[in-house]
C-alpha cells in the first residue's frame, strides 16, 4: 500500500464516509451478470445449504437443500444449480466472430458472488462435482460434472489479475472505495456498503453497527450465523427429518416450506444488497483498458468452451510441475500488465504509484531534442534527452524502461540518471521509441520544455517461457508414483463419496 492509499483510508475514517480510490471501475461489468449467493452448512466439508441465483434482481431462484447431510439431496441441488448456471453459460456460446484461429465468442459469462468466501465455496463445489460419473453405481445427472468443470474453469480464471469472469462484489467495491475500516471488515458486504451507501436515514456508524448484527443483516455467507443455526435452522431441519421419517406428505411439504422461508429470510437481504452494489458500481465509468482485458477473457472462454465441445476431461487435482510453472508465469505477467494498465488509465492509480515512488510526473526543465546516437548496427537514430523536475519520492534505478500515459501511444523511454536536489528530484530520461521511423522525431513525440509529463515502469513484453515436453521432464520435476497423481481422473471417481447418508 502506498502513502496515498493509506491517507485515503485515514480521510475516510476522519470524515466517516467512503473516499474514492480510483477514477474508473477497472473491472468490466456485464450487462447480464449471474449473481450467485451460496450458503453452506457450518462444520461440514462444503455441504451446500442453499443458493440464490439469477441474472436480475427481480428473478432470483432460491435453491434449498432441506437436509444438507443427505447425499441425494446434495446432488439434486448441484443438478438444479447446474441447470441454471449452464443455461446461462450456454447463452454465451452462440455468437462468434472472426475466422479460423481468430474465431471467438463475442461475450463471456460473468458470475458475481458477495465475497471471497463465495468464490471459495464455488471452488469447492466445482471440485466436488467435476469428477462425478454419470454412469455406474453412484451416477449423477450429466449437468453435475459439467457444472463442476465450468466452475473450476471460472475459479482458475478468476485468479488472473484483471479478469472479470468471476468476481466477489466486496473486492470490486474495495478496489474503488477506501473505507475507514480494516481489510478484514471490508470483506463483510454489509459493513462495506455501510460506508459507501448507508441505508436512507442511517448514519455510517448506525449502518456499521447494523451490519454486524446478524438479526438485522444476516451474514452474506457462505456460513450462516451460529445464532440462526441454533435457534431456527436446527429445529427446522429436525422437523423436516421427522416428517420424512413419518412419511407424511403434508407434514413434509410444510416442513420444507418452513425451511425455505427461513433460508429466504437469511439470503434475501444479501441478494438485494448485491444488486444495490452492482448498480452503484455501474455508476462508476469503466476504465478504457478494461476492453482489452475483456478480449483476453473472451479468448480464454472460447478456448475452454471449444475444449468442452470436444469432450473435456475434468481439470486435474494438482497441477503438474510444468503446468504450475506455466500458470505462475501467466499470473505474474497478467498482474504486472493489470497494474500498468490501471496506472495508465487512471489518474488516481498513477498518483498512488507516484506516492509509492514507482512512478513520477513533473515538468520538463531541460531538453536535448536533437540528440542522435549510433546503434550497434551503425545507424544513426534520434535519442532525445529530457530532464523532468519532480517532487515525487522516486525509487527507480537507472536503465528502468518507462512508458507514459501523457504521451502518444508507443512512447518509450528509459531512466538515465536520478539526482536529488533538496526536496525535488531531477530525472533525466532518454526517449527510445514512439518517434516514428524518420531521422527526425515526429511532431509531439518528444516532451518539450515546460511540458508536464508522467512516467511509469514498462511491464514489458515477455516471451512465453519454454518448458520441456512432459515425457522429457527431468526426474526432479516429475510426479512421484502415487495413487492418483498420474492421471487427471482419479480411479475411484465413481465411488468417491460426497458425504454420508447419516
Amino acid at each position, binding site marked *: *500500500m*502506498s*502513502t*496515498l492509499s*493509506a*491517507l*485515503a*483510508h*485515514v*480521510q475516510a*475514517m*476522519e470524515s466517516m464516509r467512503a*473516499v*474514492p480510490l480510483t*477514477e474508473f471501475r477497472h473491472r468490466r461489468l456485464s450487462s447480464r451478470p449471474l449473481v450467485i449467493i451460496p450458503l453452506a*452448512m*457450518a*462444520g*461440514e*466439508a*462444503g455441504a451446500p445449504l442453499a443458493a440464490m441465483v439469477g441474472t436480475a434482481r427481480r428473478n432470483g431462484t432460491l435453491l434449498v437443500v432441506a437436509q444438507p447431510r443427505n447425499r441425494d439431496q446434495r446432488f439434486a441441488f448441484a443438478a438444479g444449480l447446474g441447470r441454471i448456471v449452464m443455461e446461462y453459460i450456454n447463452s454465451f456460446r452462440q455468437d462468434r466472430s472472426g475466422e479460423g484461429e481468430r474465431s471467438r465468442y463475442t461475450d463471456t459469462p460473468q458470475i458475481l458472488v458477495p465475497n471471497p468466501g463465495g468464490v471459495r465455496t464455488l471452488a*469447492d463445489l466445482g*471440485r*466436488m462435482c467435476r469428477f462425478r460419473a454419470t454412469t455406474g453405481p453412484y451416477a449423477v445427472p450429466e449437468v453435475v460434472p459439467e457444472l463442476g468443470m465450468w466452475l473450476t474453469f471460472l475459479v482458475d480464471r478468476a485468479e488472473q489479475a484483471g479478469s472479470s469472469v468471476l468476481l466477489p462484489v466486496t473486492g470490486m467495491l474495495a478496489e474503488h472505495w477506501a473505507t*475507514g*475500516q*480494516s*481489510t*478484514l*471488515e471490508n470483506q463483510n458486504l454489509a459493513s462495506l456498503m455501510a460506508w459507501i451507501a448507508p441505508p436512507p436515514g442511517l448514519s455510517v456508524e448506525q449502518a456499521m453497527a447494523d451490519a*454486524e448484527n*446478524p438479526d438485522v443483516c444476516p451474514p452474506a455467507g457462505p*456460513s*450462516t*450465523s*451460529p*445464532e440462526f*443455526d*441454533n435457534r431456527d*435452522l*436446527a429445529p427446522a431441519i429436525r422437523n423436516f427429518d421427522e416428517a420424512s421419517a413419518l412419511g407424511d406428505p403434508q407434514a413434509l411439504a410444510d416442513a420444507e416450506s418452513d425451511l425455505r422461508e427461513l433460508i429466504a429470510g437469511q439470503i434475501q437481504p444479501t441478494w438485494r444488497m448485491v444488486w444495490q452494489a452492482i448498480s452503484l458500481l455501474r455508476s462508476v465509468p469503466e476504465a478504457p483498458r478494461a476492453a482489452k482485458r475483456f478480449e483476453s477473457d473472451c479468448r480464454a472462454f472460447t478456448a475452454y468452451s471449444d475444449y468442452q465441445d470436444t469432450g473435456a476431461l475434468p481439470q486435474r*487435482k*494438482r497441477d503438474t510441475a510444468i503446468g504450475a510453472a506455466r500458470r505462475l508465469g501467466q499470473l505474474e505477467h497478467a498482474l504486472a500488465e493489470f497494474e500498468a494498465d490501471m496506472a495508465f488509465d487512471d*489518474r*488516481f492509480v498513477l*498518483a498512488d504509484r*507516484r*506516492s509509492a515512488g514507482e512512478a513520477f510526473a513533473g515538468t520538463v526543465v531541460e531538453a536535448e531534442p536533437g540528440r542522435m546516437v549510433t546503434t550497434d548496427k551503425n545507424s544513426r537514430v534520434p535519442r532525445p534527452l529530457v530532464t523532468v523536475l519532480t*517532487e*515525487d*519520492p522516486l525509487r527507480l534505478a537507472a536503465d528502468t524502461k518507462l512508458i507514459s500515459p501523457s504521451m502518444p501511444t508507443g512512447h518509450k523511454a528509459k531512466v538515465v540518471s536520478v539526482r536529488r536536489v533538496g*526536496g525535488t528530484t531531477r530525472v533525466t530520461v532518454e526517449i527510445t521509441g514512439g518517434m516514428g521511423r524518420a531521422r527526425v522525431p515526429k511532431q509531439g513525440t518528444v516532451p518539450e520544455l515546460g511540458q508536464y509529463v508522467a512516467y511509469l515502469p514498462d511491464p514489458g513484453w515477455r516471451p512465453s517461457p519454454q518448458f520441456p515436453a512432459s515425457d522429457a521432464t527431468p526426474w526432479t520435476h516429475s510426479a512421484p508414483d502415487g495413487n492418483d497423481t498420474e492421471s487427471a481422473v482419479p480411479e475411484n471417481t465413481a465411488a*468417491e*463419496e*460426497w*458425504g*454420508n447418508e447419516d
Partner: protein
Amino acid sequence: MKAPVDGRLAALRGSGKRLDYNARSLAALENNPRCTLRALLDASGSNKAAIAAHVGHPPAFGQSVFAITRGNAFEAMVKDNGCAELLRVLRETLELTLPEVAYEDLNDVGGNGRSDKRYERTEEVLLRAARGDGEGTLFDHPMLRLLIGGHPAYLEPDLVAFRIDGRFHVMEIKSFPIIDGQADPTQVRAATTQACAYIIALRDLLGRAGIGAEAVSDTIVLVAPKDFTNRPTAAFVDARKQVAALTRQLSRIERIGELVDLLPDDLTFDLYLDEDEQPRRPPEELAETLDQVLKTYRPDCLNHCEMAFYCRSRARAEASLDVLGPVVREQFGGIDTTTMVMGLARGELKPSEDQVEMAAALRHAARLRAELEDLGGAA
C-alpha cells in the same frame, strides 16, 4: 514474589470463577502477545466474555450446533473400536510402521473427571510409557498441565501417540477437510497453535521426571476428513516455529508481575456477581477501569479475543490508526492517530524530529490527492 502477584491477580478477577486458558485465549496470546489488557485478563482468569458483554460489547463467538455435532461425530468415528480408523490412516497414509498398539482412555479416572486427578493419572501413565514399562501406544484425552504465569492451566489434547519413531506425537483431530492434500491455512494454523501448547505441556511433564525435550516430537499429526467424505486422512505438520514462538511468549507471561505492578492498587475487573451470577457493578465504572489499562487493538483480534468489539470501539473513539489494520498503520510508522496524520498532511502540525520524513511523504500524498479532487485533504 509469586504470592503477592497471585494475590493481585486474584483481586483483579474478584468474585468470578477462575477461567483457564483455552484454545481461543492461546490463539490470542500467540497473535497479540503485546496487549496488556488481554494479558492481565487471561492471567487473572477473568471472564472476558462476561466483562465485554457488561460494558455493552458482547463477543460474537457463537458456535453453530452443526459444527459442534460434526466435530464430535468425526472424532468419535476416528476413535471408534480402539481407534481402528485412525490406525488405518497412520499405517496407510502416513506409512508408519506401528508396533502392537494398545489404547488407553484417560478421559476419566474411576468416574472422577476432576482435572487434577486426571492429570495425576496422565502423568503416571505417560511416565511409565516413556520409561518403557507401559502398555499404551495411544492415549485418549490425556490431561496435561501448562504453567502459564505460574498458574496451572489444564489442557486436553485429543490424542497423544507414543512410539511413532520412538517419540511422543501430539495428534489433533479436526473436522475441517483436507481437500486434495490441502487444508485452509488459517484453520491449520489455529490447530497447530493449540497443539503447540500440548507439546510444551507434555515436555514440561516429562522434563520434571528428567526426560529430555527430544522425547516429544515437534511434528504434529493432523487428522481430518479427506476431501468431502467422512473418512479421515492425516498429515504431518511441522510445528517447530510455532512451538518456539509460543515458548517465548509464555516466558514473557512469567513477568506478568511487572505489568501488575504498574496498575493502581485498587484496580479490579470484578463484576461483583450476586447469588444469581448477575453482575452488580455499574458498567460505566467497569469501563473506566478497563480504560486505565493499555490495550493493543488489531482488527485480527475480532477473530479470537472476546474483548475485541470493546477495544475497537475505544480505538475508534480515540481515532487510533489501529482501526485500519496493520497494512495502513505500517505506512505511518510512529504516528498513532488519524488526527495526527491529517494534521501533518495538511501542514497544520509541526512534525517532531523523527516525523520529518513521514511528514514530507504525507504532504506530498496530500498534494497529489488534492490535485485529484478537492477533498480538503491538503493545505
